[in-house]
């Protein structure tokens, strides 16, 4: 079980280390750069939220980590997970770490679960396949897992098909499936976005509790600041395939540095929003096939200056553990 207090973060070697991650989709006469250089470390017991809007590269970043992308994708950079160089793995070894070292939960459990097998069978199959145990042992684990994710009358649900479950139960079943072989890293791709408000909060609380209990590291992709506030330790705000701001979630919310983060906070309607007018970010996110030169946010940025279009600014340190990719930030705090 990993300690998740502050000092241990410094001494623990990171579970996951990502350097210069890029992902591009190539097809005839076209190349789309979805992720343009992402670096981060993640230790056991911690949750990193990738926060961004559609097309910001958050999901592709996450899927690149286990190379779960279509064959047209080209993934570059270094990905080291628990001592394993993910980039060098062949298909067989890749399959071996998916489910044991790392597993993933998705936004839409209805399409992620197999409709022709019972929930119990699907969970047992993972255990049988990875751990070589008998089917009855696998089924026993499946029952434990459904109990763990607080599915009521779990024994009966073992023999349910996914269409027989409600949205919340389906998502719990998918979490049970993902955690069946006790992975060290959980990848969660907007797992609560399709859920109703009263169910969403239940699943977020469950994920927080499971992480406390099992001590795994989590990468959580979301577009919702509220969800990030509930679940994240650290947050990386993404825009056009790059991190534009990183830091502890509380600090990023309280003192955002990058103009995009500031704009995003201002344009989000929250419980304390004043009636009247919002302050939106003008324009729309850039077309990934036709990126502006320099800072990708410059065309929408009210503080943009000529130099913004010269080159992509570095992700500069504001203070330890806190970075922003903006020339205004790097000018005031030379690193």
């Amino acid at each position, binding site marked *: 079980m990993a300690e998740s207090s502050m000092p241990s973060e410094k001494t623990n070697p990171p579970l996951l280390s990502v350097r210069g991650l890029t992902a591009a989709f190539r097809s005839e006469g076209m190349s789309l750069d979805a992720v343009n250089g992402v670096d981060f470390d993640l230790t056991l017991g911690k949750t990193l939220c990738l926060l961004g809007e559609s097309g910001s590269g958050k999901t592709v970043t996450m899927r690149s980590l286990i190379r779960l992308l279509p064959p047209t994708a080209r993934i570059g950079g270094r990905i080291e997970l628990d001592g394993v160089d993910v980039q060098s793995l062949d298909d067989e070894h890749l399959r071996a770490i998916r489910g044991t070292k790392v597993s993933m939960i998705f936004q839409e459990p209805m399409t992620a679960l197999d409709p022709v097998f019972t929930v119990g069978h699907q969970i047992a199959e993972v255990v049988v396949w990875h751990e070589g145990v008998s089917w009855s042992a696998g089924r026993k684990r499946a029952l434990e897992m459904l109990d763990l994710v607080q599915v009521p009358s779990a024994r009966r649900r073992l023999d349910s098909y996914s269409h027989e479950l409600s949205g919340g139960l389906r998502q719990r079943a998918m979490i049970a499936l993902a955690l069946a072989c006790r992975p060290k890293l959980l990848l969660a791709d907007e797992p609560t976005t399709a859920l109703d408000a009263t169910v969403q909060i*239940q699943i977020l609380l469950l994920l927080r509790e499971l992480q406390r209990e099992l001590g795994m590291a989590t990468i959580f992709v979301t*577009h919702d600041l509220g969800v990030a506030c*509930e679940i994240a330790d650290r947050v990386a705000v993404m825009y056009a395939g790059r991190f534009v701001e990183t830091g502890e979630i509380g600090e990023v919310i309280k003192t955002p540095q990058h103009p995009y983060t500031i704009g995003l906070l201002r344009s989000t*309607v929250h419980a304390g929003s004043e009636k009247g007018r919002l302050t939106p*970010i*003008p324009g729309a996110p850039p077309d990934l096939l036709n990126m502006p030169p320099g800072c990708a946010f410059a065309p929408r940025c009210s503080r943009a200056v000529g130099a913004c279009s010269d080159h992509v600014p570095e992700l500069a340190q504001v203070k330890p553990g806190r970075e922003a990719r903006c020339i205004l930030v790097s000018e005031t705090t030379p690193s």
Partner: protein
Amino acid sequence: MKGEIAIQREHPTPASEPVDTLSATRPFLRVQGLKKYFRLRGGSFGLAGAYVQAVDGVSFVVATGETLGVVGESGCGKSTTARLLMRLIEPDEGQITLQDRNVGGHNGMSLRTLRRQVQLVFQDSYASLNPRHTMAEEVGFGLIAQGIKRAEARRRANEVLELVGLEPAIFADRYPHELSGGQRQRVNVARALALSPQLLLLDEAVSSLDKSVEAQVLNLLIEIKNRLNLTYVFISHDLNVVRFISDRVLVMYLGKVVETGPVEKVYTAPGHPYTRALIASRLSMDPSRRVEAAPVAGDLPSPINPPSGCRFRTRCPFAESVCSLREPPLEAFGDDPAHSAACHALIPGSGHSRAPAPGGEPSTRANGAPK
């Protein structure tokens, strides 16, 4: 010519409109006992012949010029209600009255007239636009259907495109795939406005937009409403957005209205246990004050076989036997007569142990909420 009225309503002149003098006393839209059951066809064993009770006896009014927010989770009937109001589907029972005229029926308002006054904006900005229409064709389509000449429709289309912030010279001849999500939703709003309706039904109109774009469209909706004196019914699952934009709210659960009232009342002093749970399920936006316990357990039951009596009783921490026996009526409680909820615990003499004494002062339980 039929279309003339539509074209000329662009700049409302309250003095010359007999409608507006009436509106002070009479609601713009009145819905009474609206009911729609969908029959399940074939397929699932044992379910054939069963009904989805999508909307079951919904009544409400919308005053001229106000924004009524409708909130609820999936399956609560909010979208079905919108479609019933537009007569995209026929209600099984119930009456819709628009400015004192019945909609449908023998002597009622024709659908053509209804749809000139009420327009709907859908959630999916892409699916709701015809991929083979340019924006000008799309926006002008309804006008032509209402009998307006092509050239005039085109002129009007340009006018409303400009109104929603899309330069006609740039956008009029583009196709939906050439636009961003936010621009497409602006076109949907423009199309709805082309016939100069008085009421817009916005069914999750900003829900699929990115936050930075959602704020732009919300601002646009507010601006247009003020400029054209529109009335909105704003349907959304996003509690924060509904609070931001609405004057009054209607909270729905499994096809029923469980609470309605002025927005601040409902959000600060909710009466129905479901409303309280829904409001408490909102995320905090403050990592130091995280939600620590789920406000309500479980999922929504299926609307195919909804619970007897109060439909929320299966998830309600205060459910008692009376809740399964009788359906609670929607009644005013507390200090504001406009604020009502359908909960036995708030109704004097209902037989619920938390109910105020019959005939007694509503004093101590003024805000009725069982804690």
